[in-house]
């Protein structure tokens, strides 16, 4: 589903607490109106399925659609029976399905599969209140426990833009970068060396 983007997003500004000083900063502060551009970030994103998401009272963005990227979706292909029946008494570490999924996220006290997945309808996620949400809205789930990161994501300092810098804002959702089951970034080898010591 590709939604048409219509509403304009705007950030809340706290000009009094502006941390930037100097002539350049003064020049920036003089600009308060929205700017009209002739191009749009959507030009480069024709091939990508996007969904419109209201991530704050005044902020709407476009996020990549998720379900078509999840191979085991729809979950209801198998999850036609209650979990207890499906697992036939097998423990989590003896699971015949999803054997590659283990939660390395917080602790077993904080969460298990059912904290996030809706046992009654596996095709949807569930909030702590028991309210169901779509897989495309998984940011609402993360937000419950990670409110600082969420605020930075809404503002624009955590996460990443897609399709360039022009409006409308298209961005990665939390699970584009963090595997919800194992959300830490992994250490790895750098893809190259610096060459500062060589003559350039």
């Amino acid at each position: 589903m590709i939604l048409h983007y219509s509403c304009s997003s705007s950030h809340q500004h706290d000009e009094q607490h502006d941390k930037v000083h100097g002539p350049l900063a003064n020049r920036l502060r003089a600009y308060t109106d929205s700017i009209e551009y002739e191009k749009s970030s959507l030009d480069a994103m024709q091939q990508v399925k996007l969904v419109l998401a209201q991530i704050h009272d005044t902020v709407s963005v476009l996020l990549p659609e998720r379900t078509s990227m999840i191979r085991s979706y729809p979950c209801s292909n198998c999850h036609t029976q209650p979990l207890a029946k499906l697992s036939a008494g097998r423990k989590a570490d003896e699971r015949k399905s999803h054997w590659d999924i283990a939660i390395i996220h917080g602790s077993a006290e904080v969460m298990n599969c059912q904290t996030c997945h809706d046992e009654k309808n596996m095709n949807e996620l569930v909030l702590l209140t028991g309210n169901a949400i779509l897989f495309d809205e998984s940011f609402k789930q993360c937000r419950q426990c990670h409110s600082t990161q969420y605020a930075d994501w809404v503002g624009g300092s955590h996460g990443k833009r897609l399709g360039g810098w022009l409006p409308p804002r298209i961005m990665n959702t939390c699970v584009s970068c963090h595997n919800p089951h194992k959300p830490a970034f992994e250490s790895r080898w750098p893809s190259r060396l610096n060459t500062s010591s060589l003559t350039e």
Partner: protein
Amino acid sequence: MEPVQLPENKNTGCQSGHCSCGKKKEDGFEQVMSKPSDRRDALKKLTLGLLTGVGFTSTSCSVTAGDAKKEKAQLNWEEFFKGNYQLMTDDEKNSTVKRLERLYELNNGRKINVSAQGPMKDVLYGYAFNISKCQGYMDCINACVQENNQDRNSQMQYIRIHEHKNGSMDFELADDNFYHEVPAAGHFYIGTQCFHCENPPCVEVCPVKATWKEKDGIVVIDYDWCIGCRYCMAACPYDGRRFNWATPEVPADEVNHNQHYLGNRLRKKGVMEKCTFCIQRSRNGKSPACVEACPTGARIFGNLLDPNSEIRWVLANKKVFRLKEDLGTEPKFWYFMD
């Protein structure tokens, strides 16, 4: 020698329609161009012999070798005596760009697309770097090298990633040659590149006005006007500029064909180059290659004049700082931590 009919673009003005075509010229450029024309005369006398002697004898083996050779010679000739990009009319910009495209085709049998697209209205580019996010993966540098047709032999790179011990911001103590799994415990990473200063010291010292700040804030270099004196390199407090000691080489099938006159078009020996915020991308609304390649989201790019941009949110809501702020260079490149 016969003049070659070049494809002309009669309807003046750029394709973008953003700039005030016809009205001409960037502001802020003082009309002190006597030096460049001196340079031109001097070079003319000096190299005329060389040019006719060497430049015109390159061999070619197609049936129309004669014609192609003639065309090449003519194009080279016109290229050699063209003016400083800043003083070109839109027509002149279009012609030089067409010449460069044609010359590349004649020399390499492949087409490239060189753009002379001007700045967008009401845009001033800015960049923010989130130190808490960078993991030292260096994907940004690989993307930059590929995008900007940088010399593969000298392993030219515009971006450097410095590994700092937690608690230290002293670049003298940073490790620039790390090669181990990253992030290393107890360390953080910080990237530097050209900061596109509002008051760029490099521009001031250039004796031939081959480098300047565009209206959208990007500090650019006219590679055909640069004489390679490297004053700018010495003047830059941030190690932002690079010099081509040898003719840059890029394997033919790795050349990025989507080029800009002031950006990633192929350079030659003896000229300066540096980060241009990927002018060939940013003026089309795309983010620089480093921003797009970064898997952590540590790199934030956008329009400083747009109150709704992420970069403005970062400036207003994070404790941002710039390097050597006391110099008054006003880099448009900020650092911050979560």
